[in-house]
């Protein structure tokens, strides 16, 4: 209570470093997280309270209480208490186990060790004991324990690299840098211990890419932004150590704030069942009322006389009161229409279905030995009702592996080998037998094998060499040699990594770099190139170039970039090669590969010198500096000589295309929600056939302001409706947007395939209330929706939006911590297991190793579960109605006295023993949606077994012996014997069977003849289809005529060029003297500033403090 009040008050946070006492005043949460719900003491009361909040349980408790009132009791208490206790215990055990595992995982996280600066000493401390204001030391590859303000690091100028995969799914490294004043502290423990800066910053929130605050230290103030913060969940990379001050801890961290609350998920069958139960309950009350009125009348007219006759001394009894009591008595008797065993059976059936999912070999991923797992057992039938699938990209659709697939060098394609998994081993063997040993550093996992390329390299084809040289030179990769002497590349974008690794494997090994040189090993000989200029990438240029001088003194410009851009800048002599390469590029693009064009230019020494002078001039000017530099870049990057093109595959997971195709055939809409860049997302959309070139239109919403977004949405809508309803004027359409309930008629009129692509900032605006419906309407009419650059919370918001306004069943699938909130908010969350992170799996309802298993999960398990559950419910309600309504009928003959026709034991056992198993067997094993049921051995055993059980219990209860022992409980002696020997009993049973079965058989017979069912029609249709033509299969190799998508720098950020040329990120062999630090710092200001500015421009549109005060 207190905490929540305090939390609502927290508008800003004040943290003082190394001063626990000071910080304690504010009662900030410590770093302990707990996701568990109960403790040992609170378990029983809370759990019982929760359980009896469920309508069904409360209802049965109420019944039990009614039954304990002797005036009302018409059935003995054991008819209710036995099943109720059973159900409550089962649920409690399940809850307890779940919570136990939560406790376990909490403990595991809370007990992780980190080094904390306490009492001027570094001490190992558990995560949960870390407090706000503490200074902790992180080492390479460690998880960050809390949200930290970076103080200093092992890298120059307080830089550090982090991987944020757990937060946003991006695997490329991000740079964070400390304030220069704090980075001076270095690893000096005594100075760090004396650090007493006070941070005043925003209150805890869930915005991952925003942070504002001020550090006051030594009398001066320094503004803080997101670039100085390392968030919990990140992993430190390529930085041997760093120090940080805890700002937010535990539940206040942005990671935890982003993980939405666990909601109790219910299926639509659950809701249907609840509605049904309510209706039935209403029906029950009606019956009860009728019988109660009947009783009042009967008591008044007949019973009155009977009272004196049958019961002495009860004359005072009022007939209305008697009716009132009768009402409750009948409520008890008739409650068997909704017996508690319904809930038990439903749970058992779902459990059975979950086991089928766990046992399914077709969802078992052998390479990681991961079977599918139904982590929640209560949602199976909902799987058959999915309308929207929200999928993450990285790690879900793709494997997050970039592979160098093909290349076109000087008009010739290399690498035309299949990438079939099955043939992989053969290829490896071939490679070994081929004895290809150009590169000793060759990566064993490298999968590019082409005889011809090897031959060309060995023969010394200059173009091929130049091509590979370019790949080895023109990039922003940093190299590092580990203790084993192996080269480790620190890549900023996985595409680049793939290219440099490819060059390395083909004999052109990038070895090392300094700000002025690049050293590569060309087929065994070390060559050092002088790096003269670095023309960095940006989103507008879509290319990058390096200008190097080779040992022979020639100056060369090497450029790689988007084909469309680069082709405009080619030398006219390249025309023939251009057409050839263009064809190749189209082919690559058609296979869903990410392509880059590669070109070079020989530069004249004098020309370069002039140009370089101009560049330096431009650099020093203050006004229009960027424009001038851009102009100069344009100037030199022309008359390029085309070398060829590369094709990198962002490897899709196996079977993604087939899965996507079959899911869309099943009318399931797939939306891709990714934290990745727009280009990457679109590319993947194309690669898995979600976007195709024959789509009528692809709307891209990428506005930066609310009005822009609104305008773009409006245009897209206009476009959509305009095309389809040429006669309709816009007004009609826009009037409709007032109502959030979408008009299905409008939807029907839209023909053709559309796709919507929207990015994170636009989404932020589009999710505002007044545009929300526009977005939704548009999105729901598009075949494919891709949201890129979205935060975890936005993912959840999108899911919520669809859930809320479309009333559709949603499924979210993802693999990383950034998908957790989406997984939690969707009706069904699916986690991809077998990856490193476990958060998604832990939050999910189902988990398996590969995206493609979704098809089987939804279309087989989901469908079956749904059909089975529906059949089960029909069967169950049927049998219980038939069973119970007899009492209503009998009421008219027994003076409405709540006398049962059956004995109490039969009523108790009817649902639990006699009839439960056959219904269950049908609910678990039934397979086809057709009219005929699936009679397995188990069904037979259960049905005949139930009948046998019925008779054996019947004869036992009606035997002499049991009467001798309990004459009051079992007064049935002789009944069975005498009734079953009557011939007319058997005649009645026979007649009843005939009368019940015949109408159904006749009905179905006529139905098949007159109105064939859907499944009949489908079967016929399938037959016809098979005859007509083989099923159309879409293969990844499907050629697309146009739309080449150059993949350069899809995961690339601007600014790394500067980082390299300035040399600030190079690990200095000899640390610069302290005196020189000031100077270096000053020089470095400009690029850091630029870096900040550009990154924030591309990453987020949120206004940020762009200046770094020094």
């Amino acid at each position: 209570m207190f905490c929540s009040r305090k939390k609502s008050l927290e508008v800003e946070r004040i943290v003082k470093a190394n001063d626990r006492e000071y910080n304690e005043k504010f009662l900030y949460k410590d770093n302990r997280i707990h996701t568990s719900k109960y403790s040992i003491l609170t378990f029983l009361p809370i759990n019982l309270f929760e359980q009896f909040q469920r309508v069904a349980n409360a209802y049965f408790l109420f019944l039990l209480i009614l039954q304990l009132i002797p005036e009302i009791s018409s059935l003995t208490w054991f008819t209710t208490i036995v099943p109720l206790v059973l159900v409550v215990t089962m649920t409690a055990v399940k809850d307890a186990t779940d919570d136990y595992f939560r406790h376990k995982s909490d403990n595991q996280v809370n007990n992780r060790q980190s080094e904390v600066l306490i009492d001027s000493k570094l001490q190992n401390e558990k995560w949960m004991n870390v407090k706000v204001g503490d200074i902790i030391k992180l080492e390479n590859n460690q998880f960050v324990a809390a949200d930290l303000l970076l103080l200093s690091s092992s890298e120059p100028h307080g830089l550090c690299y982090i991987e944020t995969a757990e937060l946003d799914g991006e695997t490329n490294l991000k740079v964070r840098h400390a304030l220069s004043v704090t980075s001076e502290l270095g690893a000096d423990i005594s100075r760090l211990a004396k650090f007493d800066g006070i941070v005043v910053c925003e209150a805890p929130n869930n915005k991952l890419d925003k942070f504002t605050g001020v550090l006051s230290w030594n009398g001066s103030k320094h503004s803080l932004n997101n670039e100085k913060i390392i968030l919990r969940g990140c992993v430190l990379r390529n930085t041997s150590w760093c120090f940080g001050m805890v700002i937010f801890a535990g539940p206040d961290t942005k990671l935890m704030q982003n993980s939405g609350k666990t909601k109790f998920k219910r299926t639509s069958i659950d809701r249907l069942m609840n509605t049904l139960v309510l209706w039935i309950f209403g029906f029950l009350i009606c019956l009860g009322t009728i019988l109660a009125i009947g009783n009042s009348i009967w008591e008044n007219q007949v019973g009155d006389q009977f009272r004196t006759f049958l019961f002495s001394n009860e004359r005072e009894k009022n007939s209305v009161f008697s009716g009132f009591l009768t009402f409750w008595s009948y409520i008890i008797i008739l409650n068997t229409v909704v017996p508690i065993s319904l809930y038990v059976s439903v749970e058992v059936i779902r459990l059975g279905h979950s086991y089928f999912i766990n046992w399914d070999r077709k969802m078992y991923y052998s390479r990681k030995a991961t079977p599918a797992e139904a982590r929640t057992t209560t949602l199976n039938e909902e799987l058959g009702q999915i309308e929207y699938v929200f999928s993450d990209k990285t790690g879900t659709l793709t494997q997050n592996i970039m592979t160098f697939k093909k290349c076109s060098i000087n008009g010739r394609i290399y690498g035309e080998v299949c990438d079939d998994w099955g043939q992989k081993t053969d290829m490896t063997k071939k490679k070994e037998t081929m004895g290809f040993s150009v590169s000793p550093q060759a990566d064993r996992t490298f999968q590019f094998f082409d005889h011809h390329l090897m031959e060309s390299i060995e023969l010394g084809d200059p173009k091929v060499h130049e091509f590979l040289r370019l790949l080895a030179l023109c990039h922003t990769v940093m190299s590092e040699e580990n203790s084993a002497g192996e080269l480790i590349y620190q890549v900023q974008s996985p595409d680049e990594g793939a290219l440099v690794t490819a060059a390395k494997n083909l004999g052109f090994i990038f070895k090392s770099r300094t700000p002025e040189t690049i050293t590569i090993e060309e087929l065994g000989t070390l060559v050092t190139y002088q790096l003269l200029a670095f023309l960095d990438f940006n989103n507008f240029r879509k290319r990058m170039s390096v200008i190097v001088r080779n040992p022979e003194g020639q100056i060369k410009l090497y450029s790689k970039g988007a084909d469309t851009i680069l082709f405009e800048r080619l030398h006219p002599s390249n025309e023939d090669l251009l057409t050839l390469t263009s064809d190749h590029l189209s082919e690559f693009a058609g296979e869903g590969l990410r392509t880059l064009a590669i070109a070079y230019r020989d530069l004249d020494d004098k020309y370069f010198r002039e140009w370089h002078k101009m560049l330096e001039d431009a650099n020093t000017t203050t006004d229009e500096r960027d424009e001038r530099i851009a102009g100069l870049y344009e100037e030199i990057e022309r008359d390029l000589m085309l070398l060829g093109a590369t094709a990198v595959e962002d490897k899709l997971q196996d079977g993604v295309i087939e899965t996507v195709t079959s899911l869309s055939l099943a009318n399931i809409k797939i939306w891709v929600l990714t934290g990745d860049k727009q280009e990457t997302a679109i590319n993947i959309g194309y690669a898995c056939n979600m976007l195709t070139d024959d789509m009528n239109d692809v709307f891209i919403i990428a506005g930066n302001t609310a009005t822009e977004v609104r305008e773009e949405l409006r245009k897209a809508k206009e476009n959509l409706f305009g095309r389809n309803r040429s006669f309709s004027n816009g007004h009609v359409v826009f009037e409709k947007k007032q109502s959030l309930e979408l008009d299905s008629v409008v939807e029907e009129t839209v023909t053709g395939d559309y796709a919507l692509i929207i990015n994170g900032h636009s989404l932020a605006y589009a999710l505002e209330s007044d545009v929300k419906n526009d977005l939704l309407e548009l999105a729901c009419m598009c075949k494919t929706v891709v949201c890129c650059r979205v935060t975890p919370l936005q993912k959840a918001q999108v899911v919520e939006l669809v859930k809320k306004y479309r009333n559709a069943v949603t499924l979210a699938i993802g693999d990383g911590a950034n998908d957790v909130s989406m997984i939690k908010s969707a009706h069904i969350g699916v986690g991809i297991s077998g990856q490193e992170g476990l958060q998604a799996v832990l939050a999910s309802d189902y988990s398996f190793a590969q995206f493609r298993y979704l098809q089987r999960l939804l279309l087989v398990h989901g469908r079956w579960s749904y059909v089975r559950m529906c059949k089960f419910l029909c069967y169950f309600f049927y049998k219980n109605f038939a069973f119970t309504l007899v009492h209503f009928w009998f009421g008219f003959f027994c003076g409405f006295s709540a006398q049962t026709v059956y004995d109490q034991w039969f009523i108790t056992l009817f649902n639990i023993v006699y009839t439960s198993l056959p219904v269950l067997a049908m609910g678990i094993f039934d397979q086809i949606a057709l009219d005929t049921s699936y009679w397995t051995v188990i069904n037979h055993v259960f049905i005949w077994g139930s009948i046998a059980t019925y008779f054996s219990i019947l004869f036992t209860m009606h035997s002499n012996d049991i009467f001798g022992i309990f004459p009051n409980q079992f007064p049935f002696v002789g009944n069975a014997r005498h009734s079953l020997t009557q011939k007319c009993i058997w005649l009645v049973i026979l007649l009843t069977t005939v009368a019940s079965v015949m109408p159904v058989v006749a009905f179905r017979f006529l139905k098949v003849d007159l109105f064939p069912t859907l499944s009949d029609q489908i079967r016929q249709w399938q037959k016809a289809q098979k005859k007509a033509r083989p099923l159309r299969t879409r293969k990844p190799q499907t050629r697309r005529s146009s739309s080449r998508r150059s993949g350069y720098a899809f995961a690339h950020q601007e600014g790394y060029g500067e980082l390299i040329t300035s040399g600030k990120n190079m690990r200095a062999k000899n640390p610069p003297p302290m005196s020189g630090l000031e100077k270096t710092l000053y020089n470095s200001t400009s690029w850091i500033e630029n870096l900040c500015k550009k990154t924030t421009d591309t990453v987020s549109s949120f206004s940020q403090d762009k200046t770094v005060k020094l």
Partner: protein
Amino acid sequence: MKRKCQDYKSRLPDNTAMKQQQLPAFRLQLSANEILSGFFAIGLFCLGMGIILLLSAKSIREVEINYTEKCATCAKLREDATNFDKECNCSISFYLPQKMEGNVYLYYKLYGFYQNLYRYILSRSNIQLVGTDVKDVRNCAPFKTSDNGLPIAPCGAIANSMFNDTIVLLYNFNSSTHIRVPMVRTETAWWTDKYVKFQNPTFQNLSSAFAGTAKPPNWPKPVYELDEKDPGNNGFVNDDFIVWMRTAAFPNFKKLYRRLHRIGNFTEGLPAGSYSFIINYNFPVGRFQGQKAVVLSTLTWSGGSSLFLALAYLVTGAVTLLASFSMMAVHLKLKERKTFFLQ
């Protein structure tokens, strides 16, 4: 490595038919011909069965005489509870036009008597009736104990309301000769009831076995005087008592009272002729506007004279046959159409 292999194996789901949902299954898929012939067969069977049942029910001879009105004076007398000790006899004569062959059963029949009321049915003590504890009256409310506090035996509302008319059938051989038709008063109850469910407490003398108990308030005499002539039919094991204690499911019911003892003139059954019932009128039905009747009836293999089952079979058979004809018509017509389309 080895361990890894084991682990690998253990996580792979078993390839059993059960786990992979590939259990062999029997699918009931009948052809149109099978269904139609089945329908015809069942229809004919039901029809035949209905006719047989009808004939056998018709062969039953049954005489029912409602004596509520006919014994109006006695009924009036019984209206007043204070006259409980006054005897009232009533004679009803009737003519049997055809003889009743075979076993003849004599029933009494009550109209509007609710033996199926919830609290009425509960009001009995099986422990007492089986003779283990004569004083166990726990469930017998409101007839547990008499006014002076003694436990009632047999206790409870059912026992207390026992039918206590005596019915005697006279055969009027001629206008002056009235032969009392020999009737057996035993073996009217279920064997299990007589020998298992109802037992007298074990005592030398039956009356001493019931010492310390009171008779039910409505009874004129205690339970051990129900049939003083036949000790095997006295006390709790009295057949009339046992028959009454097996409560009827509906408010109108008949209960077996006597069986014809087939000796002398009655070896063949009841000959045609004039008869009269002499009824010792005790059971008051006027209070609840009920009615009383005596029934003489024979039985057949299929039970009593009720036509319900026979008619139900007839209707079902007819409907099934009708349905099969129409189904056949529809099917043939559609078949024609289909072949037409195929051409």
